[in-house]
């Protein structure tokens, strides 16, 4: 009885672990685009810093002079990052990005093929025409 239980246990475990090799099932190893994610990270950092600077100024932690200087510098960084993102495939229009960050709007459906961000509830991609899977939960959440 114990022997049978042991054999079943070992059999199940081995089958489960080796199945990917035998059936050639693969896990995704997609490497996120370095330059793209770097630019996104830079944009994110700059926008967060801008938010902090705004907050620091309004709560009286920053002088107006310092505030203007830092804000100019950070805005330039954010713009550069956004430009880099735009050149990288024109996924996101600058204006819509700003509006999105500003209002925290929900992101729409991202096209699996070209990455274009469509308005919520779209059935076909506005950029390449691919049929979009009905998926209420966008993966994008930056």
């Amino acid at each position: 009885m114990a022997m049978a239980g042991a054999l079943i246990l070992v059999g199940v475990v081995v089958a489960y672990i080796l199945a990917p090799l035998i059936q050639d099932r693969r896990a995704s190893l997609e490497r996120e685009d370095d330059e793209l994610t770097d630019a996104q990270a830079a944009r994110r950092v700059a926008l967060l810093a801008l938010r902090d600077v705004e907050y620091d100024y309004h709560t009286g932690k920053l002088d107006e002079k310092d505030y203007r200087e830092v804000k100019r510098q950070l805005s330039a960084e954010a713009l550069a990052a956004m430009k880099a993102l735009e050149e990288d495939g024109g996924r996101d229009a600058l204006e819509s990005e700003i509006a999105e960050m500003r209002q925290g709007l929900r992101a729409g459906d991202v096209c699996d093929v070209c990455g274009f961000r469509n308005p919520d509830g779209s059935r076909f991609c506005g950029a390449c025409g691919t049929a979009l899977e009905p998926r209420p939960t966008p993966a994008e959440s930056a």
Partner: protein
Amino acid sequence: MSVLGELALWVSLPVAAWGMVLGFVGGRQERGDLVLSAERTVYAVFALIGLACAGVMYNFIYDQFQYWYVANYSSRNLEFFYKVSGLWAGQRGSLLFWLYLLCFFSVLAVWSNQRKNREFIPYVVGTLMGLQLFFIVVLLFAQVNPFEQLGFTPVDGAGLNPQLQNYWMTFHPPTLYLGFTAFAVPFAFAVAALLSGRLDARWIHLTRKWILLSWFFLSVGIVLGMRWAYEELGWGGYWFWDPVENASLLPWLTATAFLHSIQIQENRGMLKVWNMALVLGTFVLTIFATFLTRSGLIESVHTFAENTTIAFIFLTFMGSIIAVGTVLVLYRLPQLKSENQIESFLSREAAFLFNNLILIGATFAVMWGTLLPLLSEGFMGEQITVGPPFFNRVNIPFGLGLLALMGIGPVIAWRKASRRNLRKNFLIPVIVGLATAAVLYPLGIQHGLALTTFALSAFVMTVIVTEFWKGTKARARIEGEGYFIAFYHLVSRNRRRWGGYIVHVAIVLIFTAFAAEPWYVEIQQTMEPGESTEVVSPLGARYTLTYEGMSTNVRDPDQNLAWQAIALLSVERNGSPVGTLRTEKRGYLRPEGQQSTEVGIHSRASEDLYVILADVDLQGVVVDNDPDAQAATFTFLVKPLVGGIWAGLFVLIFGSLIGLWPSAERVRSTAPARAVRMTPSRHSPAPAAGD
């Protein structure tokens, strides 16, 4: 069930090894099939170790005394509750339980990254399986197998140490273990970042919730341990700088440093090597803490461990983590260059930096004091120990420095703050702090360090309240919202910051509780039944304690008691009765000869009255049952503000939960995903989930 459990433990050995090798090889060669197989070992080992734990629990519940572990940590009359928690009562079970929690967090880490951060995952899996493999090897080959059999079946077990039969003790170790094991995930991501060369702030971004989670469990575990010591050890204290207490404090200190310094890397791209060192160091310290607790290397009140060969295995393991970590960091050093420089010492990043220096200073001081007995014995042949005076003297200045920074940091702007603004922002908090000192001094609070603590606490609390108020006001103005909505949005849009401030409030509460120690009142009094003693609290209350008498109880096998002497005292506060307190001495049947003292505590918001039955004529009371032998010696303690520690715990939990609460976006983005068969991946490059 027991056989199946033991078998599962053995099967997990090759499975974990397979997972480790395939994780690293699959990541290196970018082979999706190998990686998928490796990922499956994470789930498989979790199930297998779950079976092994179930096996040990089964042995406890069904009194399988043929197993060494059960025979030594249980007995037939042990309560069911403690039989279940027997899994982590001793060294062997704890190690298995530790491993199980590690498996649990590994599953969580892999499962939540099924479709994102894929380039890290092979190495994360490899690292986690390597850690699991280590613990499986220890369990199977270091003479700590919980399934080891005695070769005969004793009629009954030796019983569980009665001091461990306490509600707090049941939750304290698992909570700490949760903290220790959760930190394995940030560690694995750090290793993955080093191996894959993705060394921007992304690995930090991905793991900061894990770090906070781990820190949260560590904090809760430490405070629960203090509560246990306070109630159960019967000497009236909550912290003794015992090696095992220190061991749990060490990773807490470095994890706290890490929580602060990652913000500099995220915001300013600085301190990359430092953060790597902190995450590697903290992880090694969690292993070190497990090792100290469970190896018996240093004598302490916690030496519930029994075997020291395991010490050398652990030391080798920690040594190799440090060596591999150092080599990897050195190899990636060119990519870990700082992107910015600190512009001014009057900046928030500078405040964070000081915070880190202090925390690391405290870490080294505590480590030095903890290891001194061992080092002195090893190098000089003579054991030198340092006690609480050393630790207090060294750490109180560190603590005060941290307290001051808690007030300074939030008010200083990032990058650069001007003196004029500092003056403006600090004026009111500093006045409040000084006013507090000025009010307290004439009231008799003249102990320098304590007075400083109270003044700084008032300063910090003012800063935090002002921050909340100013933030709400600023948000209301910028966004044109009402104050209530503005406050809600303020906190919910940057929960990490505001949750952090609430945790600071908790730390202030706990520090003020520490600072009240010079006013602890201690009176020892021998009393006959009917006699009263008056104890005056430093806060002015007058307690009258009347010894009502002693009742005894002899040989109660159901409760594992050889004898029991219970003293009853009625308590009046300022002349009005507030109830009775009982304090007792107990002798246990198993382990034979074991005694304990149970204390009586009357808690109020402002202070605790703590009663210890210090001495009693056991021969006369218990053996002869002589009514004239009831004279007993009591120790009465009044501990002002001690409740702040336990109140602080709740505030800390509240603040941490605000920081940990998943954001709405995060909830929406966890759609299930499957491995794809033979088709090119269709996943869009999803950026890291943020806040």
